[in-house]
């Protein structure tokens, strides 16, 4: 008999994986499943038939408040970097090898050709390296394992320079936290010169947003800086969207639109009515449906703001302003 993760892994469509995932949550009457029943006021059978665009999403803050886990003994608990608050999110993973399989497969589906053409892989993860519970480190570690001697993980600018000095010809797929990559660029005081110049044909994939960087930048500004700083054409600056609460990831190869890997879907909910799906092209709060989260919560609402395209891809527009209108802040009115 196939294990749950085998069933998910061999699914031929997202819908098939989703049905497997919700059947598992229903069977265990997980917290996530009980939430769906509470919100929909439906029994197991009816709840399982809720259309995806009506599926009640659990607030992402739940990952901070409780450890959401079907397994009483998860193999690993990923923790967020906790940059925006003192209490990180915790994500209980019951099968680490499945997490690795999903994340490596998602990554390779975009970059396999580059490696077949001789590219190397460098995971640049300053800051994260000290977090043993980082999902990003775990994922990059798995990519390195997959690619063998073509890949390495490094955590300081000097290591990066050294790696480039050793081989300045073969292109690189450089995957790194955006703030760390920008810190390297910021060291360059001479406009037009590059502190670190990547070999021709290289691709730079930034991830992790701007939460810890010392100044706010738009994605366009960030990509332009990375392009200038690393000597890589803007078309070769890609982005990854992932978080500790997800098993799947999403990638953007055009600097704008993110497409999730096969086990996940995006939904965008209305800003003020997060139980309602926002019309296509309308700004709203990003919801995640991740069938890979078989042990935790596969359906949750993030604090990211996004718009969605007909084909399901999303454009990220930043974070939601969570300031509460209450107390001295109540009815505050700053005119133009």
């Amino acid at each position, binding site marked *: 008999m196939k294990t749950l993760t085998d069933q998910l892994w061999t699914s031929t469509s997202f819908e098939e994986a989703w049905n497997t995932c919700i059947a598992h949550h229903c069977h265990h009457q997980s917290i996530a499943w009980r939430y769906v029943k509470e919100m929909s006021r439906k029994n197991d059978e009816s709840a399982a038939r809720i259309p995806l665009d009506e599926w009640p999403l659990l607030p992402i803050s739940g990952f901070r408040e409780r450890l959401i886990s079907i397994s009483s003994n998860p193999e690993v608990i990923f923790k967020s970097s906790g940059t925006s*608050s003192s209490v990180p999110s915790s994500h209980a993973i019951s099968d680490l090898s499945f997490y690795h399989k999903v994340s490596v497969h998602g990554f390779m589906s975009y970059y396999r050709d580059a490696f077949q053409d001789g590219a190397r892989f460098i995971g640049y993860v300053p800051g994260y390296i000290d977090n043993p519970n980082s999902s990003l480190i775990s994922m990059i570690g798995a990519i390195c394992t997959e690619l063998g001697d073509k890949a390495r993980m490094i955590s300081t600018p000097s290591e990066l320079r050294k790696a480039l000095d050793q081989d300045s010809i073969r292109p690189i797929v450089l995957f790194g936290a955006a703030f760390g990559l920008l810190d390297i660029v910021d060291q360059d005081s001479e406009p037009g010169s590059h502190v670190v110049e990547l070999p021709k044909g290289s691709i730079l994939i930034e991830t992790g947003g701007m939460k810890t960087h010392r100044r706010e930048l738009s994605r366009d500004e960030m990509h332009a800086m990375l392009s200038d700083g690393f000597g890589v054409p803007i078309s070769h600056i890609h982005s990854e969207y992932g978080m500790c609460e997800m098993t799947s990831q999403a990638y953007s190869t055009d600097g704008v639109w993110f497409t999730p890997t096969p086990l996940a879907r995006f939904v965008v909910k209305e800003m003020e009515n997060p139980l309602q799906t926002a019309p296509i092209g309308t700004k709203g709060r990003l919801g995640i449906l991740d069938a890979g989260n078989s042990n935790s919560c596969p359906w949750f609402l993030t604090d990211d703001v996004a718009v969605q395209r007909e084909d399901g891809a999303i454009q990220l527009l930043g974070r939601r302003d969570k*300031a509460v209108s209450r*107390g*001295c802040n109540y*009815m505050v*009115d700053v005119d133009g």
Partner: protein
Amino acid sequence: MDKADTVENVPKRAIQTAEILGKRWQEWIHQPPEVMEPIIAAQVDQSGHTRADVVYQLKHLADAITPESLRQWVQKSWSTSDSTLQELQPTDVVCCIHAGNLPMVGLQDMFAVALSGGFYAGKVSRRDASLMCAWLEYLKDHEPDLSERIAWSTESKSLMQKIHGSINAWIFTGNESTWDSIKHQWADQPSITESTHSTLIRRAEASIVMLEDEDESLTPSQWNALAEAILRYQGKGCRSVGVILSAHPLSHYQHSCAMVDSLESVLIKSMHDERPILQERQMERGWCAANQIAHVWVDHLLIREAPEILFEEKESLFSPIPGVVYWVQGNESMISSWLKNPKKGSQIQSVYTAQSTNSSKQIERIPVEQLDTAQQPPLDWTPDGENPLRWLLYQPSKWCAS
């Protein structure tokens, strides 16, 4: 100041101003319905509060602001032999950037400036403008002397045009980002960035109540006071209760008819009918139910056992979702530790007790008030721990020193 100009250290002029303001306030607030109704209707439109809540506020303000209470406040504010206290001059401009006026924060600032002798320049929130502007209009029409030192507007630019000369002091109510916007808008006023000494900033979010001791049970009137404190003005005023501290877990009261009845009763009295119910709050209720977290859901209000993360040092004390009140099992020492915590302490406006207490009881120098005064504070209450009138009287000596 000449002795002949004072009564027990209090300038006679301040006492006279208190008498005039009190008399005019009582005249204004007791105008016939045909005058007050349009003002109330506009206030309801602007604020989104129910008519019942606006009338509740007016009734309280009619009782709380009288010639006598104003005089007493003046006397209390001057009650010291401290020689650094000084009246302001009519040329000393105090700019008040008002947010909401619940239950009387902005209004108290306006009275404070008028009583201090300074020039009141009020930037009134467009979302809470009707009552304030109508009162200021009445005062201007009936007191020509006072009208010389009063200006207001709902628009910053318009207010700037009404102010001659520079602004000496600022009283601001809002949050960090709105204060930054105001500073940017009023950048040509050097005092806004020059010194923080003449800027009174208020940022408190909500209030806390200590409910009962372990061996006590609550009476219907105490439940009612709790319900009023939570629900009036949709629970959004700074004196509204956002955290309940009890000797018992919420599960102890979860099925209490007295509690639910009181909440229902105040909801009916305040005529508040939230439709549609905030979906984020519904999601929070679903989360509590799925996790078997003790909670009470009455109409649109959620009282829930507080999450553990609330006790972390850098975490907010109050729920980020309006209409969600946290229940914490604990005692007075917990409030003390929150007040000492920089993040949580700055969020707390007032601390109440549902039990009878002597009026001088304090926790970390914060006076413990009676719960039934939560939405009916006296005129001399101290928002964010500061008496604005007394604060103003300290400013002239600082200007001289600098």
